[in-house]
């Protein structure tokens, strides 16, 4: 009996020792030469894949540049690209998995404010940090102490629209928007800026995935608005709305479009007749020799120019910023956070620093005019 007890005790001790040894080995991994991992939440498929694809390609160039220059404290940088499909549910599931299972703490993302809005409550007690590019919804300003955005709030875009609307003397305007944080956020900001102007706003919405917005457009047409602002979340829904605007003969109304349409060069050229004279807004980053040098690497690597130079520049800087932060403070959320809060970084997209709400400082939008199927800067 005693011998049996002894054997059981010995087995338990062996298991405990093995467990401790395994844990020790695992802990040691953090100090080994294993690559430092960042998860990139990009829209690689879906309605904004046209942003995700160049973003991923540019991120690969950034990683190569960082690793060729010696990596992060002699460790390679590795990015795990994940497709959030512009879907908050998908983003949450990927984020949770990366956080809990793969123990990733540093994230970067591209596009779809709703995805960042969905994952931000999961970041607490220094467990994770996200630096996003082209996430624009106004509600993301200060949404979490762990969310930074290398972009401007689109409230600035709405302000420019509101000023232009007042200048043109419109008395009644229409808005058709998608029910998402970004697209609806723009409409809410526009309403806020036009609140006391006496301008009547006729708003209509549609849910993501809708393929028929004809009744909403018919109501706007019936209201005899002088201008229609189109705010889709994705290029796909922008295509559907513009097609149906044309079918219903609403293209004779003056149009304002959000930055997603301005960025979608194919869409602007496809609906050149509908969009002729339309006003749009977008955030343009600085471009100089340094920017051109990096963009040339994109052309060299992939045989084409980056179709979204703002996104490419922004993503390149975001990856380099995170790499610098980890190099300086270690793979530690609190350290990276304090680094970003005080950074003044000379990136290829201009000087980067963040305000108290973690939005990129000095990031101004500009108005664009669509002429002959192309968007050009609007000189008011």
């Amino acid at each position, binding site marked *: 009996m005693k011998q049996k007890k002894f054997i059981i005790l010995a087995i338990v001790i062996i298991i405990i020792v093995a467990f401790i040894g395994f844990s020790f080995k695992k802990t040691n991994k953090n100090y080994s030469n294993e690559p430092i991992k960042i998860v990139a939440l990009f829209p690689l*498929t*879906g*309605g904004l*894949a046209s942003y995700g694809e160049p973003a991923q390609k540019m991120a690969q160039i950034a990683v190569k540049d960082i690793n060729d220059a010696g990596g992060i404290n002699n460790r390679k940088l590795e990015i795990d690209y994940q497709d959030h*499909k512009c879907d908050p549910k998908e983003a949450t599931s990927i984020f949770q998995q990366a956080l809990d299972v793969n123990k990733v703490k540093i994230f970067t993302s591209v596009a779809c404010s709703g995805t960042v809005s969905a994952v931000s409550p999961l970041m607490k007690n220094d467990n994770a940090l996200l630096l996003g590019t082209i996430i624009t919804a106004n509600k993301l300003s200060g949404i979490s102490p762990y969310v930074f955005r290398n972009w401007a709030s689109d409230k600035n875009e709405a302000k420019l629209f509101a000023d232009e609307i007042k200048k043109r003397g419109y008395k009644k305007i229409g808005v058709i928007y998608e*029910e998402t944080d970004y697209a609806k956020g723009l409409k809410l900001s526009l309403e806020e800026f036009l609140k006391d102007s006496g301008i009547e706003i006729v*708003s*209509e*919405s*549609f*849910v993501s*995935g*809708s*393929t*028929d*917005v*004809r*009744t*909403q457009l*018919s*109501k706007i*047409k*019936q209201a005899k608005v002088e201008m229609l602002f189109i705010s889709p979340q994705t*290029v*796909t829904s922008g*295509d*559907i709305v*513009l*097609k149906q605007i*044309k*079918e*219903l*003969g609403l293209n004779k109304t003056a149009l304002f479009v959000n930055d997603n349409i301005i960025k979608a060069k194919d869409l602007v050229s*496809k*609906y050149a*007749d*509908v969009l002729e004279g339309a006003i749009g807004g977008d955030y343009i980053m600085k471009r100089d020799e340094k920017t051109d040098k990096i963009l040339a690497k994109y052309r060299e690597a992939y045989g084409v120019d980056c179709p979204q130079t703002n996104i490419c520049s922004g993503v390149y800087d975001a990856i380099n910023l995170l790499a610098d932060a980890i190099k300086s403070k270690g793979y530690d959320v609190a350290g990276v956070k304090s680094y970003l809060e005080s950074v003044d970084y000379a990136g290829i997209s201009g000087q980067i620093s963040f305000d108290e709400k973690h939005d990129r400082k000095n990031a101004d939008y500009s108005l664009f005019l669509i002429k002959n199927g192309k968007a050009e800067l609007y000189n008011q």
Partner: protein
Amino acid sequence: MDIIPQIIINSLVAGAIYALISLGFNLIYGATKFFNLAHGIVVVIGGYSILCFVKFLGLNIYLGVVISVIISGILGYCLDRFVYLPLKRKKASNMVLLVASLGIFTALQGIISIIFSSQFQSLSENSEQVVFSFFNGFITETQIIILISLVLIGLGLILLLHKTQFGREVRAINDDEEVAKIIGIHTNKIIGRVFFIGSAIAGYAGILVGYDTGLEPTMGLSLLLKGVIASIIGGVGSIYGGILGAFLLGFVENFGILKISGGWKDAIAFGLLIIFLIFRPRGIINK
């Protein structure tokens, strides 16, 4: 009100699309008594077949439509032959068949995404559409084709079911498959043909939707749901019920958002479904 003719046109077009989907769905449900969720992906495959043949391979549009419709029909037939029939032979319940059809839906949707990407695809090369003005409302050439197609397919199906031996056999299976077997009807063969016809109609609906709005691999689910709602409120398994339910759904959806925001459109559709499920679960045509 100036807007009414346009809303009526919008409702008719939406109703016609739902009706085309519910026609095939009801035809198959009538014969098999299970919810074939794979019907939604057959719609998508019809749309992507035409994209492949006409836009990528440059085939004549009429030939492309015929080939795409046949492909959709064959797909439906194969699903019955190689998935549902073996399951039925193993005495699988309708729930098992439903789950299998959901699996087929998901798998084929994934395959379409891999082959064609998840991107939205437009069947027309440019934004040009022939638009007609009708009582102060606008209707496109594609939408007129949708309405005419529904009338022709609906009439054709009614004639097929009521004036042919095949139709009588289908109706006998609808009433009671076991009794149909006893009186000598080769039920499996007839059900296979029903799958072919129902799926061919679904594929044709996918082509029309592709030309009307565009294509996405994920569009099947929302179209299927609207087709199923139309079937349930009209009377599941009934051809007339499906058409009636589809137009009721189209009109309620479009007139329902006349005074409230369009974001409520889907909520109205599902609200209508719930009302019918509570107060008239067997639909308008109480089969």
